[in-house]
């Protein structure tokens, strides 16, 4: 790993610190700060209470909020951000394009489309279903939509120009348009009540975080990370171009389908549980690349850390700035991501190219 000196003003210079260490430290700090912030005031005795020491509180006091709402939400934000960051890094590596994004592939749109269809079509059918399943129906549909889009994408792109990544990008554009049209149609056909469900889902919020989701997402992320570690060296070869990568022994098609599935799984899951939150994958991966260079072996893990940090900060602002109300987190991901990116650009002027 390279140790880099950031081009910051002298009083801020951090010499010889590994970027990853810096990010982990920042993330831990962020988590600590985020846990402190929120509408409900949380005290030391609340902490003792949830750890099983001290007096147990009943009702919806600080301890309850801390354990059931705030902690899961903070970890949820970090994990969702990390999965978005990972998906963004994978997409950019796949397309060899610093502006690529799972949204471009049509994954998010596909997930949204499946959810919209589920809301409008299925809820009208009144199928008998146990209540516990109902809760999982919408996210499962969105998840399935994301995967469906990715497989379709891969198939179609092979017919068009086998092995070409530009063809993939264009296919993604077309699928995006199709999904958007279907969503528009669903919006048009929806009854008032269905429209309400649709709008909850598209507002983009991390409010649904609970421990079950955190555990699920952590497991998913671990699995994705394990899988990606085996692919990063080959991903570096993609930078040479598809044909050159094949010449040095990389099975480009195989690699591409692996990456696509991973991206679909990660991005689809985030969209399914949180609605549409944009920018995190794009900004995280791009920032990391600007900072430490384009070696995927570093870009991928650091994109995860950066994505987690970014979304955590955004969500913390979103839920603390207008207490007791809450602002949609997507606004903050855009507001925080862009200026920071400009600042980093300024510091790395000569290297952007």
């Amino acid at each position, binding site marked *: 790993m390279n140790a880099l000196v950031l081009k910051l003003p002298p009083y801020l210079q951090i010499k010889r610190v590994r970027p990853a260490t810096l990010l982990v430290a920042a993330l831990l700090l962020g988590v600590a700060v985020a846990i*402190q912030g929120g509408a409900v005031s949380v005290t030391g*005795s609340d902490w003792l209470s949830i750890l099983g020491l001290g007096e147990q509180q009943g009702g919806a*006091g600080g301890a309850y909020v801390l354990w059931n709402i705030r902690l899961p939400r903070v970890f949820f934000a970090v994990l969702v951000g990390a999965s978005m960051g990972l998906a963004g890094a994978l997409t950019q590596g796949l397309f060899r394009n610093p502006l690529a994004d799972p949204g471009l592939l049509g994954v998010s749109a596909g997930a949204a489309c499946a959810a919209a269809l589920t809301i409008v079509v299925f809820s009208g059918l009144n199928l008998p279903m146990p209540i516990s399943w109902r809760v999982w129906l919408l996210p499962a549909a969105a998840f399935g939509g994301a995967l469906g889009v990715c497989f379709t994408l891969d198939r179609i792109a092979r017919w068009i120009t086998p092995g070409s990544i530009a063809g993939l990008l264009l296919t993604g554009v077309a699928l995006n348009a199709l999904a958007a049209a279907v969503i528009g149609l669903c919006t048009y056909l929806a*009854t*008032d009540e269905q429209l309400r469900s649709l709008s909850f889902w598209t*507002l983009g919020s991390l409010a649904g975080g609970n421990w079950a989701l955190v555990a699920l997402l952590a497991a998913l992320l671990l699995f994705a990370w394990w899988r990606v570690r085996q692919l990063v060296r080959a991903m570096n070869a993609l930078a040479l171009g598809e044909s050159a990568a094949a010449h040095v022994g990389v099975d480009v098609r195989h690699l591409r389908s692996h990456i696509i599935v991973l991206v679909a799984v990660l991005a689809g899951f985030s969209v399914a549980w949180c609605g549409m939150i944009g920018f995190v994958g794009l900004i995280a991966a791009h920032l990391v690349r600007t900072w430490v260079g384009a070696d995927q072996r570093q870009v991928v893990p650091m994109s995860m850390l950066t994505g987690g940090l970014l979304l955590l900060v955004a969500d913390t602002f979103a839920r603390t700035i207008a207490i*007791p*109300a*809450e602002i949609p987190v997507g606004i903050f991901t855009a507001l925080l991501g862009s200026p920071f990116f400009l600042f980093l650009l300024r510091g790395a002027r000569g290297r952007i190219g």
Partner: protein
Amino acid sequence: MRRLTHSAQQVNLERRKVCLHVGALAAAFTVAPTHAANPANSRRIVSVGGALTEIVFALQANADLVGVDTTSLYPESAQKLPSVGYARSLSAEGVLALAPTQVIVTEDAGPPAVLRQLSASGIPVTVLAANHRFEGLNERIERIGELTGRVAQANAIQQTLQQDWVRVRAQVAQHTTKPVRVLFVLAHTPNQIMVAGADTSAQAMLDYVGANNAINGFSGYKPLTPEAVIAARPDIVLLTDQGLKATGGVDGILKLPGLEQTPAGRSRRVISLEAMFLLGFGPRLPAAVSALDTAIGKVMRV
């Protein structure tokens, strides 16, 4: 932003007690002396939905209110209460921070995850729908009366409302002229107008007033093409005050494609009423129906 640092710790429970006492004290000064806050069962109510908040105020239980949403604009004093934000994107922690004993919401409220979290924390969450009917309003009043412990006041209000309602319906029934065709305009883009079809609160109001919706054939709020607007031949265009202002007044409305060629457009028959008043289906419903009826009558005579 409420954030406690380690050096300024106070036990949550004590803080709540202090707040309640202060609140009770404040209530004693702001509310009419005939009603005293009941310190033994202190209720803390969060109300999400303008109409529901109106009902709470009408029952004189507003001393118990600790938080309202952004649509709770009437009466004026409701706007001074802490806001929990937009009904569709509530914050669990935000509501819990107000330490409510009861949360009353309209069917619009959400996200569902937050409502679930609130119920799971042990706080009763009551969803009240109005179904755009006077009977729905009655049910709401009754239910809120129970929840706030103002059953007697609720009954009283229901009786008053019933009398008003009967009177207003009689007034409407007296009209002998042909029903007018009214087009309710919700919003617009440069090319299209979003109007109310069947099964909407606007449609319900028109039914009560004995007018016909110029549009039939679909339900909900949908966009209309200019041709469809002309084919609808509305005699009157109805909007909310806010909608009218946003479009630039009567002149602005009539510039929308298609409206100018309609009978309403040619005679400049445009009515507007305040949004929550017109569509809230709150305690002002009889007054709203009466106001709408009068406005229609006035504009048709000219």
